[in-house]
């Protein structure tokens, strides 16, 4: 067999390709990496200037404005508990990293989702790529990310963005395609342009589904923080990773629990934001 079918050196080709890309674009990306790292660390520093208890109240207040009093109350208790355990600063680092990743995932993912919902051709290209992004073990993204961006926050963000983006794209696409055909006909019959149809009818109606995608992206991004810490991304994930390598069960549970608390807060807030309109009797299909 070996003589008949010589093994193709795929791995070598990919290494060469990545090297070439790093050579070509590495320096250009350095600038981007510096800005991103500065922004993330700057945000963490600014947040850290505020006393933790006050900030916990502010976060709870924001949760209350977006969602319900109950969620706000849970947020306050949960955040104060994290502070009490002494993981406030790593929590801020993680939160900033997660939110940064999610913002990138949405800014890139939603337009791709909208575009694929409109063009069957785009869909044919995007769908297999999404399958790849979702099934490829997340660690694999880390390796080229290190080449491009060194170790630290940035490769962590990049890996999280790639990992977290597919649900946003998929659910944006799905939400827009699910708008009933007769509503599309109605917008067409009144002479809407494509943009009017999209932005006045399809996207508003797809909003609950898109928000479900956003929610999933946040959750996936959170699940990446421990993995990202392996390339030096700071935060709660780093604490978890350390407790694993040092076999410290207690610290592991404490930090793990802190991540869970943040996850629940973010999940409840975004879920509520997605379904809010239903309660007004408006946005259901």
């Amino acid at each position, binding site marked *: 067999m070996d003589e008949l079918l010589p093994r193709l050196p795929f791995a070598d080709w990919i290494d060469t390709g990545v090297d070439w890309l790093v050579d070509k674009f590495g320096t250009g990306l350095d600038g981007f990496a510096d800005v991103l790292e500065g922004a993330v660390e700057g945000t963490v520093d600014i947040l850290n200037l505020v006393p933790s208890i006050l900030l916990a109240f502010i976060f709870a207040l924001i949760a209350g404005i977006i969602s319900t009093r109950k969620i706000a109350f849970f947020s306050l208790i949960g955040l104060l508990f994290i502070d009490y355990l002494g993981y406030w600063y790593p929590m801020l680092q993680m939160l900033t990293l997660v939110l940064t990743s999610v913002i990138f995932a949405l800014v890139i993912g939603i337009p791709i989702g909208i575009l694929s919902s409109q063009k069957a051709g785009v869909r044919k290209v995007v769908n297999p790529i999404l399958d790849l992004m979702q099934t490829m073990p997340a660690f694999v993204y880390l390796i080229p990310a290190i080449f491009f961006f060194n170790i630290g926050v940035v490769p962590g963000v990049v890996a999280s963005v790639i990992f977290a983006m597919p649900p946003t794209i998929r659910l944006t696409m799905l939400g827009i395609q699910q708008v009933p055909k007769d509503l599309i006909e109605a917008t067409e*019959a009144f*002479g809407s342009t494509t943009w009017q149809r999209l932005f*006045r009818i399809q996207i508003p109606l797809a909003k609950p589904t898109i928000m479900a995608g956003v929610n999933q992206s946040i959750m996936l991004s959170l699940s990446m923080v421990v993995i990202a810490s392996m390339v030096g991304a700071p935060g709660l994930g780093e604490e978890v990773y350390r407790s694993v390598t040092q076999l410290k069960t207690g610290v592991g549970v404490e930090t793990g629990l802190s991540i869970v608390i943040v996850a629940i807060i973010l999940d409840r807030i975004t879920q509520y934001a997605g379904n809010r309109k239903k309660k007004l009797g408006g946005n259901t299909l």
Partner: protein
Amino acid sequence: MNWVRVFRTVRSEDMSEEYINKKIVVKDATKIFGKNSNRAIQLLKDGKTKSEILKATGATVGVKQVSFEVNEGEIFVIMGLSGSGKSTLVRLLNRLIDPTMGQILLDGKDIVQMNKEQLRDVRRKKIGMVFQNFALFPHKTIVENTEYGLEIQGVSKKERNEKAIESLRLVGLAGYEDQYPKQLSGGMQQRVGLARALANNPDILLMDEAFSALDPLIRKDMQNELLQLHHDMQKTIIFITHDLDEALRIGDRIALMKDGEIVQIGSPEEILMSPSNDYVERFVEDVDLSKVLTAGHIMKKADTVKVDRGPRVALRLMKHLGISSIYVVDNANRLLGAVTAQDTVEAIESEKSLNDVIISDLPMISPDTVLTELFDVVSTASIPVAVINEERKLQGIIIRGALIGALSGDNEFINKDGTMDSAAQPITEVI
């Protein structure tokens, strides 16, 4: 049924004169779904049937070389069973579905040839559409829904709001502006659909099974209101339905579709009275005649006397005709009432005029009254019921025998076209 066969002559129209008023002219419009449409068209031109083409090419013929014309201000009903292609046909008219072949002229302009911008402009200004399942935007309030057509044209907030509110008022929904579609009943939702289509003030209204999703009572109300609106606004309406009763009720003319083709076009009466083939005949055979035929169809010549002729002439006429009462009209043939033979004799004896013994409290109906509404009046009246027009001129009378005869489908009792040319001639002029 012999009434079907006797009146098979369709009134020929003077085409050249009417052509000027054509709002919509459809020539040879064809829609073929699926690949291979070129080959399918070729086969179609060779005169192959829908199923032969499906077998040969795998393409489905949705609408097959349909041609018709719609007059300005008319309600044109396209009727057919499901799968007959009627919904496809109506979508060809505003190109929600692009025709594979043919011409569709709106005010003489072929929309098939239009580019995107021109087509959008036609859809915005000229054609409104109402959908079977309402197709209201669930995230918009009633007034926002109604404004939609104007909103996308860039009409200012204030102006479109005014127009939308006016449009909602027309359909009887004033006060519901800030509700959401889900909060309204089906009938009310369809009123919003209608208001939304009217807000743009289009010349043409396409209504795709607009009332089919409503329950029968609401449906009838909506039909009446549509007729009222049509009477007030004189829009050209293309109305799609699978319901023959609905078609007969609201259509000025009806096109009956089968397998993507129009089998017959005509007035409701022509469709009923002279079906062009067996299919149409089977379609219409179960129609309840009492809901279709009107007083005009069954009225007979009335025997009348002019009021200034006096009681003696009246009495002599009654004797001559062998009847016990006679209608009294003025010089303009307006109905004043009736006199009985007995009262007339008394009037002669006491030297009174006809005016003194006239019975003016008589049941009177218009020629448009359908037979179902006649039964009650006819059964309780002691003398034949008078049929009068808006000017109170006597058109004819309804005798019980004719009513029953017409219901049995006997053509002898049915006047063609619902009019009776000689009815207005008082018999007194002859004598």
